[in-house]
Every structure is written in C-alpha cells, then in structure tokens.
C-alpha cells in the first residue's frame, strides 16, 4: 500500500523551476533513498512531502503522520535533549504520564541511552540526530523524512546512527536523502536518482533482498548513469 504518492509534481523557488514532473511512490514500511547532486532540490522535495512547502502543481498524497528530520537538526539550543523531545508533546497537551512514556519509547528505539539532560551544543552530532529522530518518533510519526542525517558524523556515530535506522526498518516508512553510498546501499529497499535542471526522479532501482555488494554496484552504476541490470552479463 502506497503511503506517499507524488504525481507530476512541480515547484519553482525564487523564480527558478527546481522540480518538474516528479513522480514518486513509497509503500508502507519501505526504506526509500534519494540520491542526487548538491542543490538539485532534494531538500525541497522532502519539505514538500513534509507539508512545509506547497507544490505549484501536481498531486501529493501522504497517508500517515510525517516526521521531518532536517539537514540541520533544528533542536532548540536553550532546551536539553529531553526537553526538545518533550516540547512538541507538551504543545499537544498530552498528559505528563503519556509524555514520559512516549519519550522513553522513542529514545529507546533510537538507542539514545546517553545523557538526555545535555544541551544540544554539548552533545555529539550523532546524538543530536538521534534526538531529532526521537522527537519525530515521539510525536507518533510513522513516516520519517531524513535529510542527510549522516553529514559530518565521525565513523562511530555514523555506524551507530545507521544501526538505529536499520532497527527502525519495517516499523516505519523512511525516505532518506544521503550522499553516503554505503549507508544507502546497506539500508535501502529502493533508491531513486534526482537529477537535471529542473530536476525529476530519472531512474529508480530496487535493492531489496540483494546481497550488499550487488546493492553497492547497482547504486554505483545508477550514479554513473550505466544501465543497472544488464551490466553483469
């Protein structure tokens, strides 16, 4: 069942056409990754799916509750990590007990076992990303939109965040934007390449259930513009 459906979607920003005729379908529980060069419109596309931007034309259907984790994690610096996760729940006037339970569950799911009383600037990049994901999960998101979550992480934070996402797989639907080929291959069921000016999703590849080397190869070929399947013969 498709929980995200974009049909012939277009968007201009600052008088320039960024996205044109974008088609994308993501099924429930699927892990979909978007690859594409800098400035092509990946963030713009995620913001449209998150409902933060209105498309100029085309159809957009999103079924479920969307949690957007932006490129900069957008945690409020004057609140601790815990308070950051709690605040949107408080704004929704949930009861204290319910809030505590949700925060516990979300931080457990993302493996945020460290100190939640840290302020964002005291926490590592990886911990901040996990907190931002936990914030979305605590709000009841069953669709996660992740914008370059691995950016600027050291190897151990990156690995830890990757395993966190792996453990979430299947339970939530994920749309990931990333330049990290290995992480994309490791995690994704399907990948799409967003290219061109204006940009559209030109090629998609199904990775599901392939061995990891095959996935990596497919993504490499996708980026290089080689035909994905016939290459091996």
């Amino acid at each position, binding site marked *: 069942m498709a929980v995200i459906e974009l049909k012939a979607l277009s968007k201009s920003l600052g008088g320039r056409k960024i996205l044109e005729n974008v088609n994308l379908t993501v099924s429930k529980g699927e892990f979909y990754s978007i690859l594409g060069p800098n400035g092509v419109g990946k963030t713009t596309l995620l913001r449209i799916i998150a409902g*933060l931007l209105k498309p100029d034309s085309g159809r957009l259907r999103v079924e479920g509750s969307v949690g*957007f984790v*932006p490129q900069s994690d*957008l*945690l*409020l*610096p*004057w*609140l601790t990590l815990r308070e950051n996760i709690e*605040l*949107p729940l408080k*704004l*929704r006037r949930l009861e204290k007990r319910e809030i505590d339970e949700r925060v516990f569950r979300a931080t457990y799911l993302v493996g945020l076992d460290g100190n939640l009383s840290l*302020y964002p*600037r005291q926490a590592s990049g990886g911990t901040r990303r996990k907190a931002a994901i936990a*914030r979305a999960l605590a709000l009841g998101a069953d669709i996660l939109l992740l914008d370059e979550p691995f950016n600027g992480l050291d190897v151990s934070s990156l690995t830890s965040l990757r395993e966190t996402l792996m453990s979430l797989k299947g339970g939530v639907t994920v749309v990931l934007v990333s330049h990290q080929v290995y992480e994309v291959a490791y995690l994704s069921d399907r990948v799409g390449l967003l290219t061109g000016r204006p940009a559209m999703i030109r090629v998609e590849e199904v990775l599901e259930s392939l061995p990891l080397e095959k996935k990596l190869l497919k993504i490499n070929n996708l980026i290089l513009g080689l035909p994905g399947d016939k290459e091996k013969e």
Partner: protein
Amino acid sequence: MEIHLTITGFIVVFAAVLLTWLASSIIWPEIMPSPVESLQFTAERWRTLLSDSLITLENTVLGFTIALILAIATAWAGLAHPLARSVVDALNTIVQSVSALVWALFFLLLFGFSTNLPSIAVAGATAYPILLSGILKGFDQALVDYGEAAALIGARGRSFLRYVLLPASIPYIVASSRPALGSALRISVVAEAFGAAGGMGYRLWIFYELHEYRGFLGWALALLVMMLLLDKTLLEPLERWSRKWL
C-alpha cells in the same frame, strides 16, 4: 589578569576624581566642600540616603518593567501582519527620536508634581525605545533561525511566543536591558528633581536649592555607585548568562 586590569582602571579614575575634587575644594573653599566633609555629611544621613535610593530604584525598575512588557507586546503585534509591522517600525523610529526632557515635562504635566508617577513614566518612556529595537531585532533573528523548527514542532500563536520567540530573543532582550535600565535610572532622577515625593533626584534638587553642596556631592556620588552596582552585580552577569548557549 583581565579582572585586575579592570579594577585598576576603576581605581585610577576614582583617584583622579577625588584629586580633582580635593583640588577644587582648596581653590574654591566657599563653594566646594572637601571629599571628607561631604562623605561625613552623607554617612550621617545614611537612612535618608537609603530611603531615597530605594524610591529611585523602585521608580526605575517599575518603569522599566512596564516598558519591557509593552515592548514585547508591541514587537509581538508587529508579527501579526506586514501592515502592523510597518506601523511598529514607524513607531520605533519615532520614539527613538523623542528627547527624554520632553518626556519628563510631558509626564509632569500629565501626572502633576507630587507623585512618583512622572518618574516611573519617564523611566519607562526612556527604556521603551531601547528595548523595542532590541526585541524587534531578536524576534526577526529568531524567525530566521527557529521559524522552521517552530513549524516542525507545531508551536503556533501564543506557544510560539512563549516557547520559541521569547527564549530565542533572551540574549537580545538582556543586551538591550543594560542600556535601557541605565538610561531609565539616569533620567528618572531628572523627573524626580522637577517634582516628586522623594528619591535621589528630589534630594539632589533640595540640596542644590539649600546650597548644601556637601549633600549634593555625596548624593551624586551615591547615585553613581548605585548605577555601577546595578550594572556589575545584576546586568552584566545576566548578560553573560544569556549568552551561555549561543
């Protein structure tokens, strides 16, 4: 090291002032009392000095608080609509240009000469424009920095003000509070001098009228010390605290 230098600077200035004072008391003995005479006179009347300081402090802080609330309300109203914002910007430009003397005389006309109201109102009117421009800057920056975060967590309307806008603007609010409170204190004394039921300014004026220059100089010095104490023990630490997470 740095703190030592700061203290050294203050000591040098104070020494220079005392020396000048001493010298002028020798040159014009009929007018200028010596520092020792002046301090002795003041110390003997410490109860009056204390009550005057408290009145002035109360007037200033009250006026400042009212101005702070009004400035936040004004800046908040400016976010409602571009038209409202243009009105707020115009208001900001205009109030920046009104002289404190005009405010003082205006509030004296309005409230009369025998209450603290003119002093409070003048303190507020002086603090308001300084606070308003600081808060407007803070709100604008907060919108740029945290507008999207607010949308993401569903902070709208009053919760946006309370949980995002105000905390994000605290560094700006505190930074403008320093000069605002300083100006308010300096000018509320002027209003007290023109007519009030007490306070540092009131007493300064009385001493001047009575040609009691020992008291005049003592009270002037006390006012200066009060200003410095307020700044160093309250406002400066507050400003440092507010930049903690920047």
